[in-house]
């Protein structure tokens, strides 16, 4: 399915995992950003990724907990970066170009490198 195709956008995209051009999982579509105004077409602008994007999808008390545990960062993935949508959303670039790899890289720094077959 191509992103410009006629699809049930919100239900098709929300909560799908993202796979970057190097085949690495790099987040989940947590929310969608649209542009438009009354009388004008509604257009999908970006995918929102990160715990901050849960706001509006969860009760306030749960959102407080998410903020304490995981922070409230949001990363925007422009629509143009999507190559296809299936059981995952494929991106046309590595996660680092979009800033989707920050947490993974922070975790990588505290893991010893070596000793694995």
């Amino acid at each position, binding site marked *: 399915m191509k992103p410009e195709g006629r699809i049930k956008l919100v239900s098709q995209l929300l909560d799908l995992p993202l796979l970057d051009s190097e085949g690495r999982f790099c*987040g989940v579509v947590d929310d969608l950003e649209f542009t438009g105004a009354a009388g004008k077409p509604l257009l999908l602008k970006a995918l929102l990724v990160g715990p901050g994007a849960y706001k509006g999808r969860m009760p306030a008390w749960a959102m407080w907990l998410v903020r304490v545990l995981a922070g409230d960062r949001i990363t925007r993935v422009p629509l143009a970066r999507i190559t296809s949508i299936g059981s995952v959303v494929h991106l046309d670039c590595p996660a680092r170009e979009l800033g989707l790899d920050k*947490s993974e890289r922070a975790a990588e720094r*505290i893991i010893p*490198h070596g000793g694995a077959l």
Partner: protein
Amino acid sequence: MNPLELTLGIMTSVGGFVDISELVFAARAGSTFAFALIWVFVLGTIGIIVFGEMSGRVAATAKQPVFNLMRHRLGLKLGLVTLAASLISNLITCAAEIGGVSLVLNYLVGWPYMLNAVLMVIAMIATIWVLPFKWIERIYGLLGLFMIVFAAALVAMHPPWGKIAGGLVPQIPPGLSTKELLTFAYFAVAILSAVLFPYEVYFYSSGGIEEEWGRKDLLTNRLTCIVGFGLGSLLAISILANSAIQFGPANVDPAIPGTAALQAAIPFGKWGLILALLGMFFAVAGAAVETCLSNAYCVSQFFGWAWGRHKKPWEAPRFTIAWITMFVLALAIILTGVDPMQLVEFAVLFSILVLPLTYLPLLLLAGDKSYMREQVNGPIAKSLGWLFFAIITVAAVAALPLFFLTSGGQA
């Protein structure tokens, strides 16, 4: 399909089938109700074959593990509830397995239980860190095949085969008092829970992705589930039948794993006991590894992190931190001094409560044509799936009242 790979896969499933909860409940069920609960093991085994095959088929067809798709199917809120329930259930189960393997190590070498728990966690972390996925799965699964000594012990005891076959028929033993009837029902629910533990499908479907399953592996998936789980279940039934023959008449309650190991010592002496303990050691340690990895799979797949032991630990760093954290939390539970057999009770109780939450999304996914195309659930898988969903829902509703009414099967 490579016949050697298929055989190894099936043998791994057989050796990895029995865990501490099945071991304890099979032995206690046999000594308390003779052969009358064999049919529950058979029922549970058909259930795990149905759901295991379904989760493997989803992995091979959609190329995504169950939890990746579960969030998309259920949405964020219900998905988070399912995630939290699964994590708690798996963590308690993991702690119970670590407790169980530490007890078995104590029987084997005599070292203190708490020290064993620490050493075992270090050893299991080292195993997962060093070895690739297939080796981890195969080493524990294949060495767990020492458990075959329980089946050999049963044959050597010349059991009443007619009575064992009679246990395959669904039944409630006649003449039970109300208390005994409730205890029978509690054992039935506990056995169903132990056979259908949620971690099994998460581990199995994620394992399918780790091993890069595709449509060509659908037959392997089906055979591994049917033959592997089926034969594995025979080991659990052997423990139940041995217990009925050896412990029931002597009024012995095999409430700890060491008593169950004696089943092989009676016909085969010291070497029977050693083989039984070694089988239990590797099977239970394998279950601890699977529960721990399952939790890391669930969290990583839910939040879209890089995951899998086909990658080096530093290539999937949050996944690595997740499984190490799970081991540390499970060890912390053990170090509080809680009785490991009580943990086994809690593990089966909590698991049955969350089972419907685990299997409903799987049923929905496997029945969804947009993911599964021509591999969507057929009429048999669909009917069996919904039938077992109804059974586990009834069991989940009955579990808590039965637990309290029977004081955890002690009534």
